[in-house]
């Protein structure tokens, strides 16, 4: 008898795209609000963005049930941290925690593609990008999800330093102003919605800076 293949998958892909851009004293995290399954839309109004700590926000695309479980898990761990240390977790600390949490399920992963954005202990913007099993890197900008193949090259064109060999050594952090970064994000999602069927409906933008956290919305194509 030939080897049987599974006829049921524990995973589903709910689509969508996420982006995060780090600035000198701010961080922009954005994601669309469309949730799909197959070629159908489940809802046009689902937030993929979750505030994990005062200065730390996560956007995740992939299987939203796993994303929700992951967010709840991290929120519980953050509460324990606050009880023990009497303070909020910093963004780099949360980044490591997220990586460990993902790798913990290395052999039945969270189907979740995350970008973590926030301010580090000095108030500078930081973005961390992940794969499904916790491999992560601190970067100046990143995108994940169904539209990332369309979005990432554009961000590289606009934000990437010419070459790592060039002197003076460029920081990972982009020298854009906050308003310019928000504008760039809006442009990027508008373009992605044109060609990626899973990206659209509405764009949710979260901006973290010294004043706190601010939320903005923008309409996208609904087809």
């Amino acid at each position, binding site marked *: 008898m030939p080897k049987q293949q599974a006829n049921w998958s524990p995973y589903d892909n709910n689509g969508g795209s996420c982006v995060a851009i780090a600035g000198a004293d701010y961080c922009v995290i954005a994601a669309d609000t469309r949730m799909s399954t197959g070629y159908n839309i489940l809802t046009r109004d689902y937030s993929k963005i979750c505030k994990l700590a005062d200065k730390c926000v996560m956007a995740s695309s992939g299987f939203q049930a796993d994303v929700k479980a992951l967010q*709840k898990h991290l929120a*519980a761990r953050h*509460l*324990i941290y606050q*009880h023990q240390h009497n303070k909020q977790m910093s963004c780099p600390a949360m980044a490591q925690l997220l990586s460990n949490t993902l790798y913990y399920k290395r052999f039945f992963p969270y189907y979740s593609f995350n970008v973590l954005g926030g301010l580090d202990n000095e108030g500078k913007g930081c973005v961390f990008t992940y794969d499904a099993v916790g491999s992560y890197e601190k970067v100046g900008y990143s995108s994940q999800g169904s539209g990332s193949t369309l979005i990432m090259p554009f961000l590289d064109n606009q934000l990437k330093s010419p070459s790592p060999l060039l002197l003076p050594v460029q920081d990972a952090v982009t020298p854009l102003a906050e308003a310019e970064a928000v504008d760039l994000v809006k442009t990027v999602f508008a373009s992605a919605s044109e060609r990626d069927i899973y990206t659209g409906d509405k764009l949710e933008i979260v901006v973290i800076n010294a004043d706190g956290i601010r939320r903005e919305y923008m309409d996208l194509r609904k087809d």
Partner: protein
Amino acid sequence: MFRNQYDTDVTTWSPAGRLFQVEYAMEAVKQGSAAIGLRSKTHVVLGCVNKANSELSSHQKKIFKVDDHIGVAIAGLTADGRVLSRYMRNECINYNFTYESPLPVGRLVVQLADKAQVCTQRSWKRPYGVGLLVAGLDESGAHLYYNCPSGNYFEYQAFAIGSRSQAAKTYLERRFENFTDSSRDDLVKDAITAIRETLQGETLKSSICTIAVVGIGEPFHILDQGTVQQIIDTFEIAAEQEGPAAEPDAAEQSAAAADQGGSTDEGVAPMDI
């Protein structure tokens, strides 16, 4: 209480039907520095006296936040209290994770009481040597519970535990009928006054007491020293005027209480209180 042949381990009953190890554990609570709690319909206030071992050391933490809607003040073996607080925090986090709603205080104190009871029925364990004043909110309003090492728990309008708590209890007994409708600020003032009663003469400063509040629309938090000192200052002036008159009264009452304490020791088991 005196040493006897039935007090070696917790799994031995005395002929009179007492578990002496459990009663000794409750003694440990009486040795700890005072903690008080009082509640109105909408708020609960916890207060405690900070006793440091020496001038050089810091004082032990006796009030713990368990969740946004629950806090606890302890008296007795603070290490046991710390461990139980960690247990309570975990229970709240797990309940919230499963049910996406806050753990009702009433449930938590039962779990705590059951946990304490286990230690009174295992030969390889000892009872927790800490009394807990649990302050919390649920759908039916504000609550204050007292959990003791025996595994019993009681709900109170106001209570005090620890050393010299009788003085605070006397003050609270006089005033408790007003508490239900008290405003939050009046409740805090009453708590500070109750703490002052336990100090019996020692000057009341914000550095030797800690106050915490939880209420409807107000998550559990410990008041900072500056705020507490301000409140102390506002009524220290008023209190000074009635000070000389009040002291002889307090001395008579604590003497009467001590007599009663002596006679109940040999007769009724303390757990029946």
